[in-house]
């Protein structure tokens, strides 16, 4: 068996953020078959979803950081995927978020997970900047970015997709 080692686990009040594992693949792939994925690269078929899930895991190998699977502390069911994303061709490093199922919305899960990832990016990963790229029309994600304190940056380069760039302000030292 080949396992990923060296990935951190983050804990918030209600949530555990851990690296993706093979057993998360079916949930990820099912999400990417639905229209809910339209603002985050989908929808896509089984083959494309499987490839993308491999890329999610490989991202950790390439960069030493990546997207976390978010679960409640006492239940390993994947609620979504939130974390750090940086294909090395992109202009800036991103904190991104996806909730797999609409029934998990409205509970502050994405907010709580994203805030932990923003803290982790500043204080542990020592990033110089953090942005979130949000596809045009993804109003729920825009609202979350604003609740996190991010501001739209009209001058920043986007990574070649139709996206707003939301910039997270650096905390006072």
């Amino acid at each position: 068996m080949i396992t990923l080692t060296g990935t951190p686990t983050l804990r918030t009040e209600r949530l555990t953020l851990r690296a993706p594992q093979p057993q998360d693949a079916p949930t990820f792939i099912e999400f990417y078959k639905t229209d809910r994925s339209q603002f985050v690269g989908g929808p896509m078929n089984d083959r494309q979803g499987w490839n993308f899930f491999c890329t999610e895991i490989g991202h950790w190998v390439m960069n030493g950081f990546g997207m976390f699977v978010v679960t409640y502390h006492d239940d390993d069911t994947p609620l979504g995927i939130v974390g750090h994303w940086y294909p090395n061709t992109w202009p800036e490093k991103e904190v991104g978020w996806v909730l797999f199922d609409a029934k998990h919305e409205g509970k502050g899960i994405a907010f709580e997970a994203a805030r932990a990832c923003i803290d982790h990016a500043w204080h542990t990963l020592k990033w110089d900047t953090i942005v979130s790229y949000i596809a045009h029309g993804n109003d729920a994600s825009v609202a979350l970015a604003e609740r996190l304190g991010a501001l739209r940056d009209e001058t920043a380069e986007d990574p070649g997709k139709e996206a707003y760039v939301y910039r997270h302000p650096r905390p006072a030292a």
Partner: protein
Amino acid sequence: MTVTFSAPELETERLILRAPDLSDFDAFAAFYASPRASFVGGPLSRELSWRSLALEAGHWVLRGFGRWTVIEKETKATVGIVGLWHPEGFPENELGWDLFDGATGKGYATEAGRAARDYAYGTLGWTTLTSLIAVGNDGSRRVAERLGASYDRDFTHERFGDMQVWRHPGPEACG
């Protein structure tokens, strides 16, 4: 913190086969931008090449096997990516090889392919192995022939189009 996965390393007379990582990106992207990648889903942009290299690493974790980056011992150059591959949408486990520009004509695909096949039969205990070869990819077909594989059947891949399945000799024949 270093994130790794425990892929085995293989060594042949002239080559080292090791797990893919970010240091392979420039060579990998150059190959996937070139016309030579047209038989394996290319040409790809640099971003798609990056995603594809990450996929190579993730495949190891999901499947327990994958493709190795091939290093030429003498020069330390990255000469290709060869190994065991079974993404969603492939009919069977396959042995695949992509040699980067300038690395062809030296028998490297055959040498690395034989090492990967020995690992599949010996360590993983597989009983059969195929290679998918795009119609018209004569260079790759010749490698399959040198490895003793023979044409098995046609297969159409959703993205790569018309391909042939070539079947390798089994574990007994490869001794």
